[in-house]
């Protein structure tokens, strides 16, 4: 497989959220605004890319008995870097995301990719795979948050695009809508999969 194929496979065909139902906690929580989703997505891409690179680079050194522990360590390391960066440069967003940045650590996507790909492949391939998975994840976040923000606030990325005639759907900024929208997304993917055979 070349790098492009790896990327497409992990971003779309095996998209963690809609085809493997992984990492949805944060997918649901930060999608009430597109800006939060984008920042969260970038954080995940960064963490995924670098931790896959690191894990793959030292994969022959990691003793098998503490493999999970070591992987968690490396992931947590990058998550803390992201957290420090957000606190220093995007303090408002950091406050809005609250604990969800820290929860990237327990995001099953990352552990999943580390186990399934990075521990068996070369560093560069792993990094591409990580970026792919992160991009796929960000894409889903942006789709859900787009619907939630346009219905809930009449806005895109905080810019008011629908005028005052628009009746805001407050359910879209609250928890239940996230569940419904994710269900719809999974449904649509399943239907398309079936049609393709």
């Amino acid at each position, binding site marked *: 497989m070349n790098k492009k194929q790896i990327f497409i496979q992990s971003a779309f065909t095996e998209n963690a959220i809609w085809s493997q139902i992984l990492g949805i906690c944060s997918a649901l929580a930060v999608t*009430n605004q597109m800006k939060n989703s984008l920042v969260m997505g970038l954080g995940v891409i960064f963490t995924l890319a670098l931790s896959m690179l690191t894990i793959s680079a030292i994969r022959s*050194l*990691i*003793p098998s*008995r*503490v493999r999970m*522990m*070591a992987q968690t*360590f*490396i992931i947590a*390391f990058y998550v*803390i*870097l992201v957290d*420090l*960066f957000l*606190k*220093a*440069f995007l*303090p408002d967003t950091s*406050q809005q995301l609250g604990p969800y940045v820290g929860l990237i650590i327990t995001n099953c996507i990352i552990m999943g990719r580390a186990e399934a790909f990075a521990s068996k492949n070369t560093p560069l391939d792993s990094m591409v795979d990580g970026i792919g998975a992160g991009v796929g994840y960000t894409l889903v976040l942006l789709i859900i948050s787009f619907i939630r923000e346009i219905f*809930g*606030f009449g806005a895109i990325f905080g810019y008011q695009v629908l005028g005052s005639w628009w009746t*805001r759907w*407050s359910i879209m*900024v*609250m928890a239940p809508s996230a569940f419904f929208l994710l269900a719809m997304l999974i449904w649509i993917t399943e239907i398309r999969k079936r049609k393709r055979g």
Partner: protein
Amino acid sequence: MKEKTNFLESRLYPVVFMIILSAILTLILAFSYQLSKGRVEMYQELRLQTNLLSLFKSEIPELNDKVIKENNPVIMNELYNKYLVSKILANRPDYQYYEFLDNGNTAGYVFPISAKGLWSTIKLLVAIDPEFNQYLGIKIISQGETPGLGARITENWFQEQFTGKVFYQGNSFNKLQLIEENGNPNADQILQITGATVSSKAIVAGIQHDLEILYNQNFSNVKVD
């Protein structure tokens, strides 16, 4: 070469590996933390200073919307040092409040106050004149109310309507009342946010409750007869 593989399989190796790994990672983290620390603190201070200063926007000639928007740390810090001074309550050494100075004279106080909203604790700053007669303004610092409903307490019109409302009149505290959003408020009335009675009530009640305690315990001597 042979020795190395032996060590990699030894029982000690995982421990050594983890120690080395965590040492390296922690070292890098400690370094980046030191780098970012100053910036984080600077941001927190800047935000507080901007919030405090914007409460007295009409009284500070150097301050206008453009300056607030630019939010230059140096300018804000200068203005802060010129107009505001932080103080500590005698009976509560952990409670910090602020005094607004106009040409060296006390022209108002600012108190950080928290109110119990529908979903969250709402934190806000309340400015009041030195004799505790009327509110000079309020500023919501943080809140977690329903977006689109309760969270509308951060809209300017809602916060600005407190300016000039009476806190203490004659010999008693004045109770503010809430009326419908599209109504015409008189001097004692606050327009509440439609569909978010709890959040609106929380702010009015929280401000009055905390300020009355502060007045009774620490400031009952400020009245000039």
